[in-house]
């Protein structure tokens, strides 16, 4: 009975945290795109009120089942990602394979974003879907190899162990390439900032183009939630997890997650969206080899340190 | 969950995949049939491993099956693209005609 209660409060906490992270990301993004502070904070609730009242608009011969299913599945992916993050020493979803699960969840985003584009049976949606997959192939491999680095250094795929293995020197400090590649991947699977081409304004918002009402709300919210969730997972991976002076560990995790979310969203909001073919080549030919090199360096350090 | 039930499910997957691989005309659908068959094989091997001899070597075999699956898919897609460019066709029947 006590177990069930604990699980329920844990789940409620994860939901709340996802919500707060998404709101932080959206507000910070809005500030970066030139809104004033108060306006930016109120932007999310205002959009929520507007979209909830909006009438649902359908396209001709849309694959409604897959379209809706995919749109509404993005937010749960973000929630599950947040649930993987160990707050003190254990996460809501513990397990020895946290890193691999995080990777699997971000792969699920592939399927859902493509379906959001495809399902609407509209040209811009389809073009957005194509763009997303081309971009996803390019950002995913650096992201995967970036995930290898902290796991290799800690000798474990368990996020709690990875967080605990970082002493005073956080992995972000001595694995900068992996950290950057990871954050770029986060922007990729939240389709924001420089990697926003699949939902780019120049293609009438691509995969988002035909969404309306509550469907549009959940997908738009999910983009910010995914950014926040990705940043939260970076805390145990690269930012020392619960380590920090004075405050309790859980507070440090939350604080780091919120700060990283705000910073990442701000940078993303400041940068223009890059055209896909401008991104794909450097991601494959520059970033991927660099990240593999980073893994090699980490491997050598681990072997030498034994 | 016993070895028998796992194998039963695995053979069901294999049979469905076999039906698809034999009956479909479009190359990509044939490959989906093959994929289902490999999923059946994977499940059966997993069952054997867990219920007969759970030592690491069995897992290595599963990993190899998984790798074979990716090789099959990648090469299959490449051949399908090549066929399509050469003949403008994606049907297995037409590929045979090309051969004749």
């Amino acid at each position, binding site marked *: 009975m006590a177990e069930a209660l604990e699980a329920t409060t844990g789940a409620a906490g994860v939901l709340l945290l996802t919500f707060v992270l998404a709101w932080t990301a959206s507000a910070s993004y809005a500030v970066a795109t030139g809104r004033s502070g108060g306006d930016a904070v109120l932007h999310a609730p205002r959009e929520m009120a507007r979209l909830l009242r909006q009438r649902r608009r359908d396209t001709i011969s849309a*694959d409604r089942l897959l379209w809706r299913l995919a749109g509404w599945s993005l937010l749960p992916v973000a929630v599950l990602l947040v649930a993987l993050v160990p707050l003190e020493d254990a996460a809501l979803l513990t397990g020895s394979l946290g890193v691999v699960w995080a990777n699997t969840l971000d792969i699920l985003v592939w399927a859902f974003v493509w379906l959001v584009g495809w399902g609407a049976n509209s040209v811009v949606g389809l073009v957005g879907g194509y763009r997303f997959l081309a971009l996803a192939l390019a950002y995913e491999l650096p992201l995967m190899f970036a995930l290898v680095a902290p796991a290799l250094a800690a000798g474990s795929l368990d996020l709690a162990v990875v967080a605990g293995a970082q002493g005073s020197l956080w992995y972000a400090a001595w694995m900068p390439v992996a950290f950057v590649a990871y954050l770029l991947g986060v922007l990729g699977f939240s389709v924001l900032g420089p990697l926003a081409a699949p939902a780019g304004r120049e293609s009438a918002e691509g995969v988002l183009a035909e969404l309306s009402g509550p469907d549009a709300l959940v997908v738009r919210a999910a983009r910010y939630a995914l950014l926040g969730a990705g940043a939260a997972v970076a805390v145990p991976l690269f930012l020392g997890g619960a380590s920090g002076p004075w405050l309790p560990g859980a507070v440090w995790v939350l604080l780091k997650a919120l700060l990283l979310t705000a910073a990442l969203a701000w940078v993303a909001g400041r940068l223009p969206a890059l055209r896909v073919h401008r991104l794909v080549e450097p991601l494959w030919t520059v970033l991927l080899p660099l990240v593999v090199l980073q893994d090699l360096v980490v491997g050598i350090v681990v072997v030498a340190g034994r | 969950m016993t070895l028998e039930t*796992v194998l039963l499910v695995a053979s069901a997957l294999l049979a469905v995949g076999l039906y698809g691989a*034999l*009956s479909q005309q479009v190359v990509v659908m044939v490959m989906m049939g093959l994929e289902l068959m490999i*999923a059946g094989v994977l*499940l059966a091997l997993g069952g054997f491993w867990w219920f007969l001899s759970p030592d690491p070597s069995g897992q290595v075999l599963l990993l190899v099956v998984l790798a074979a699956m*990716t090789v099959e898919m*990648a090469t299959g897609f490449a051949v399908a693209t090549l066929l399509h460019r050469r003949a403008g066709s994606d049907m297995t029947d037409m590929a045979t005609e090309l051969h004749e």
Partner: protein
Amino acid sequence: MSTVSTVSTVSTMGLVDVAFWACALVAVAMGVLVFVVDSMARATYALAASFVATGGALLLMQQSYLGVVVVLMMVMEMAVMAVYMVMFMGMNPALMPMSMVHSHRAAIGVAVVTFVALGSGAVLVPWPERRGSPSPDVTEALGTAIMESHMLVMMVVGPVMVATIVVGVLLSSSRTRYDRMGDDLDQPALDPPALERREERR
């Protein structure tokens, strides 16, 4: 998710059974749906769901790493597969339902015979008792096996994968880097190759 795999198998046998049958049902039902639904997008994603359920069944047999990797790889692959479906299917079956099968009955016959043969084999063969027990950390044991006793396997798989990438690109691409950057590879790359500019260069 991964908590399931750490549940002790003795105390909650019932729960694992239920989970297994749920996975099995989803895996087979979605597998059948692949060849039933009209829409190619639905077919690919039914296959993805079937694979996720297969991965779930593997998780229940404590093969957490392989289970997760099956889910990861297959969802990725199906997302890409959907694009191939769009590229290759002559018309859009999502909007214009039609049947694209040949020797339908024979295929069903072969499938049923296979299922009966394999299924009866699975039930009737007197399987031996289990030898040994799984190591406490299956993932670590697998990693050690790959990197120590079975290193040769990985050393073969690696080059095969690289060869696959090269073969795949060579077979499927019609444009080469000479098309993009001129005969001496010294011109700015044309991406996307504007139609007329390409013709001019030829």
